[in-house]
């Protein structure tokens, strides 16, 4: 797709060489919807909201969901970031995440683990949401409302998983301590 020798950058201030140094090759997930760069992928879902009560229920539920987000998403071990918001005059819910690794193989494990948190946010809010426990129906619901991003940037280090980043920081800290000790 991108070819340094023929590419004409959007801005005339930037050369094709510079673009080439930064560009990332984007592809689809191995088996499903969602863009992927390196080992990192995006998950975007836009679902209709139950009217008229859905938005108020959501705003109430989201308080605890925010407090517990670190637990439920952090323990998954693969999620980098996640945002959930009401959009289009509260008629739709946007759920957008960045995660490492594949999505499809892990669906069942994720569902098994995160059902209470996800159901807390979606039940009574998202129209037609069957609850994650109903495995087949939940997959169909996701398939119906998942959208693929048209553009996606996967960070400067798309191959690093959240665990890799945690480990890298631990190693850097240990190395600093070693240097401090050597100089002390």
């Amino acid at each position, binding site marked *: 797709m991108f070819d340094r020798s023929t590419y004409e950058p959007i801005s005339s201030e930037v050369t094709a060489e510079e673009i080439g140094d930064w560009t990332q090759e984007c592809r689809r997930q*191995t*088996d499903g919807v969602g863009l992927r760069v390196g*080992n990192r992928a995006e998950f975007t879902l836009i679902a209709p909201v139950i009217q008229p009560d859905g938005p108020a229920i959501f705003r109430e539920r989201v308080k605890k969901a925010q407090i517990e987000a670190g637990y439920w998403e952090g*323990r*998954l*071990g*693969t999620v980098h970031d996640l945002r959930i918001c009401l959009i289009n005059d509260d008629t739709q819910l946007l759920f957008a995440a960045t995660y*490492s*690794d*594949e999505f*499809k*193989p*892990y669906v*069942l*494990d*994720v569902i*098994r*683990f*995160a059902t209470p948190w996800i159901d807390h946010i979606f039940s009574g809010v998202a129209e037609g949401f069957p609850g994650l426990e109903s*495995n*087949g129906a939940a997959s169909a619901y996701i398939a119906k409302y998942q959208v693929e991003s048209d553009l996606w940037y996967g960070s400067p280090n798309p*191959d690093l*998983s959240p*665990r*890799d980043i945690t*480990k890298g920081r631990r190693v850097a800290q240990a190395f600093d301590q070693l240097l401090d000790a050597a100089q002390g």
Partner: protein
Amino acid sequence: MSGQQARTVPDLDFNDIQGTLLRHRPDVYYGVYILFRVDDAEVLKRSLRTVLPKVTTAADWESPRPFTLNIAFTYSGFEALGVPADSLASFADEFREGMAARSVVLGDVGASDPKHWTAPFGGRDVHIGVVIASTNADGLDEPVSIAQQLAGATIIYRLDAGVLPNRREHFGFRDGISQPHIIGSTDQPRPGQDAVMPGEFIFGYEDELGNVAAGPTPEVLARNGTYLALRQLHEDAAGFRRYLRDNSRSPKDEERIAAKMVGRWRSGAPLALSPEHDDPELAADPQRNNDFRYYDHDLNGLRVPRGCHIRRVNPRDSLKDSIVSVNLHRVLRRGAAYGPMLADGVLEDDGAERGIFFIFLGASLARQFEFVQQVWMNDGDFVGLGNEKDPLVGDNNGTGTYTIPGKPVRRRLSAFPRFVTVRGGEYFYLPGIAAMTWLTTRPPAIEGDHRV
């Protein structure tokens, strides 16, 4: 979650379940695998009806004839037999697509790419597979002649397999030691063998999620059936020997590296129980040779590297801190070596075709066989190993690494070559006996009906 709380032991219908599903092959074995293309569905169905009484059930396995014979069908096989459209549509997507179409998920790329597969693999011509096993070579004649009674079909592939003189596979390891224990089977679980609900492997029973999984419809087709992935895997025995020699400091070190790649010494003795040297007595003792876990004593893999073969295909309790439930991703494995042994000490390939003919069984190809291939064998992220792959059977291409944890520092092998190349494979469905009877008594398909 798994195996901890008391669960109701289900009554398995041994008379209806095909034998190979509940029993693994004996240590000394001979096997024949025959693939058929259906040419005339009605003739085939009539002949299949006469063959059905000879199919080995799990009940027959208790009082075996000198052989076992089992029959499985591909999606295109079901199409050829005129299975109705709504029934065809009820099979899992990956089964309908076929193994070749799943190549990227499975890591069947490079030399293992389906475009290099041996015919008839990867096309739509493989319709029926017959799996025959016997404890002696003479015992194969009768089942092979039974298989040849299938009329209206052409034999398009045959592979003969059998125990090697040293009773090991071509890389020199004793294999087939560890299998999940199916709750409700007549086997006694051995120490270290994890108990898994039968619904993980057989339709019609409760699985690890507490559900009875939706198999294909109608129900008669699902009950006591399962999916089967068949793979012919070429083993580069000479390449494996060369790599060990080139990357070790001594013959003793060679054996150590080999063991660190697999997780067991060549005898089958587990590194977890004998980390410093081989122990043939331990290997030969079924009460001890599989009785180990990782979490409490070897979380970091100092004994058994987290990336080694056996810890990938069955991480046991080492993923306890993650959200992954290992029991949702177990497979039953039935492997058989084929081809001549490479002579001792030979380091150059002799050109002979040799390897393992593998069968994986389970109720979900996607979350069992494909998951293990994609997430555990051909990736390293699940244990923080980046993109390292299974050192023995992974889709390596000569650029990867393999990390052997150690104190004070790890050892890292590089330029990891491919030792196993996929020669071909197919997804099958292994129905129960009643399901096959149903298949043979279906009225003739209206021309074109199954393509709706």
